[in-house]
């Protein structure tokens, strides 16, 4: 199978199953509805094999190019079948799981995520630890064949839906910085875990505070070795900053197209519109290059910080244009479409924050890509 064959076959399948795949709600839907819809689309696509292509056979996939995964993400986004950011979480979490989990663990778990039987979350940020991930303090102590975890995470997306969590913990001394971090893959129904959803600015309970009170995690649930958690994070973040964002160009393209259709005569500034469109297409071009590099087997690294900066720039440019072009809809409109524009405008503000803020990406570019040495 090559990418053109996959594309043709998947498009045909999406057409044939249009009714079954369609969301049961109008507009954006509630978070519960969105999550149920994501699970449905994943299950149908997995059972029809499309959701398995591009993933290694040892975790339940059918092998083949990772471009198939990218196309799946893009196609379901372009057809408005799923909330793209939530749907693409598997592109953040599964690759690292495949690289670092014990083979048997990856083999049982990854397929559940891909089939939509499970949701996973990413427990990195803490109240005292955002950008400075190396300073995290959620404590883990080795106790025979188990780890015992005590501490807190925050802004953990989808924690209240998640069956599992990829968790970074402090196993070394508080001063051990990035050397003393251990990554665990834990069950969210373990005794001692409390999840408290937090309402986001765009009106969703998308992320949560998560409290761990002496939670017991079997040692075989370690990702990588003890003290190797930083490598796990460094492996995961490039996906979060690039390939997991691939479908956002398709999403932004469809929203910008919609804006062109509904903009009142004279409301669009041609120069601004042209610039925003070019910025979006440049992000798409960059992102395509990254997808092809990953498909060729090249490791992803610091260069993905450029993808992330471009995504934030493009997404905010599109929705700034929306706010300028449809000021009444965004501010006082209460119909379904106005609500959608407003929600998406507000969500676009997070694009320069999640996955490492734009400032952090520039720090990485300066240090790693321009080799400017340490900034201290």
């Amino acid at each position, binding site marked *: 199978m090559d990418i053109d064959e996959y594309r043709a076959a998947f498009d045909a399948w999406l057409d044939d199953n249009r009714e079954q795949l369609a969301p049961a709600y109008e507009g954006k839907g509630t978070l519960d509805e969105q999550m149920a819809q994501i699970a449905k689309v994943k299950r149908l696509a997995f059972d029809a094999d499309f959701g398995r292509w591009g993933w290694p056979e040892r975790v339940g996939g059918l092998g083949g190019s990772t471009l198939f995964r990218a*196309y799946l993400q893009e196609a379901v986004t372009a057809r408005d079948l799923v909330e793209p950011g939530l749907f693409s979480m598997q592109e953040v979490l599964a690759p690292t799981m495949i690289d670092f989990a014990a083979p048997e663990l990856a083999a049982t778990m990854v397929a559940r995520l891909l089939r939509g039987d499970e949701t996973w979350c990413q427990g990195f940020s803490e109240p005292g630890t955002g950008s400075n991930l190396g300073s995290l303090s959620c404590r883990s102590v080795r106790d025979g064949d188990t780890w015992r975890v005590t501490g807190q995470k925050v802004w953990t997306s989808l924690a209240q839906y998640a069956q599992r969590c990829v968790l970074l913990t402090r196993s070394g001394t508080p001063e051990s910085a990035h050397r003393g971090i251990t990554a665990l893959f834990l069950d969210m129904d373990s005794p001692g875990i409390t999840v408290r959803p937090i309402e986001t600015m765009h009106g969703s309970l998308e992320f949560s505070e998560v409290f761990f009170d002496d939670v017991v995690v079997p040692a075989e649930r370690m990702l990588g070795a003890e003290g190797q958690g930083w490598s796990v994070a460094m492996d995961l973040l490039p996906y979060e900053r690039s390939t997991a964002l691939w479908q956002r160009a398709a999403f932004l393209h469809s929203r910008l197209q919609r804006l062109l259709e509904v903009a009142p005569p004279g409301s669009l500034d041609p120069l601004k519109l042209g610039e925003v469109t070019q910025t979006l297409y440049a992000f798409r071009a960059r992102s395509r290059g990254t997808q092809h590099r990953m498909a060729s087997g090249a490791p992803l690294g610091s260069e993905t910080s450029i993808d992330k900066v471009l995504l934030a720039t493009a997404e905010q440019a599109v929705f700034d244009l929306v706010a300028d072009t449809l000021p009444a809809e965004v501010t006082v409109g209460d119909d379904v479409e106005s609500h959608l524009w407003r929600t998406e405008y507000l969500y676009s503000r997070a694009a320069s924050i999640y996955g490492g803020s734009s400032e952090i990406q520039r*720090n990485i570019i300066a240090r790693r890509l321009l080799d400017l040495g340490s*900034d201290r």
Partner: protein
Amino acid sequence: MDGEELELFERSLRHATASATGAELDAALVELGWHDALEVDRRASVALLFGLQGEAGSTSAALDHLVATATGLAAAASTGVVLPAIDRWDPPGVVHGRTLQVAGLVSSAGAECPEVVVAATAGDALVAATVPTESLGLRPVHGVDPWLGLHQIPAREVALPAEPTPVEGSWTDAVAAARLALAQQLVGTSRTMLRLAREHALDRVQFGQPIAGFQAVRHRLAETLVAIETAEAMIDAAWLDGDPGTAAMAKAVAGREARVAAKHCQQVLAGIGFTTEHDLHRFVRRALVLNGLFGSAKSITSAFGAELVESRQLPPLLPL
């Protein structure tokens, strides 16, 4: 061209563009077979040469050649080509009977030729009008970048010595080819500005440390790299889809991002970068002119935006 061959070709081109400019570089390009390579691997030949010209700050008649071959204008080496005036991209001439109205620019190589050919509209048709160079009243351009060696044709009417000939190729293709080449040259120009600013940031000590240690400086340089890679990605897209509209986007993005690069690098180089003792100014100047050739970022983008408002239809996204 494959790996090793490509590497060798790049090395020769790098040497040629770094050590020669103008007529000397043209001679070197003939010697190392750039024109033949162009037929074999268009993308690599254009990307390498123009990127390297941008990096070195050199110039050649290669742009004339691209415009001439895309339109099928006379390809004789002894004939120059008229380029559109700054910020224009329509054919530089209009033919009425046996008179040619022409305005535009001629490269330093073109100005040395006894004759130049002008792509001109004649009613709905595109024609090639060949005129003696001396009939154009060429004036060397001093302007912001005298080193580019451009010549200006003051708008004028010229009597045609012979019937203009119909043209096979399309002007749209010529514009697209020129824009892709210029976009690559802008990226090369930006890369050198970044290299100069980066070296300075590491060398220059203030407050007891290299200024590269200051985050404000680091972020400017990081933004410059983002700007360069943005333009590079857009150029890549234009080669992939072969659409003149995408080539236009690539030129606009490269022109805009070169201005971003110039702004940041100039600020990092500060006082020394404001002198003619440092090389930066040549690249800042070059970027301004290259941005203007075959349409500035602003004009291309406004025209594109106006089309979108009119059609209410975005172009398709680059496929995976």
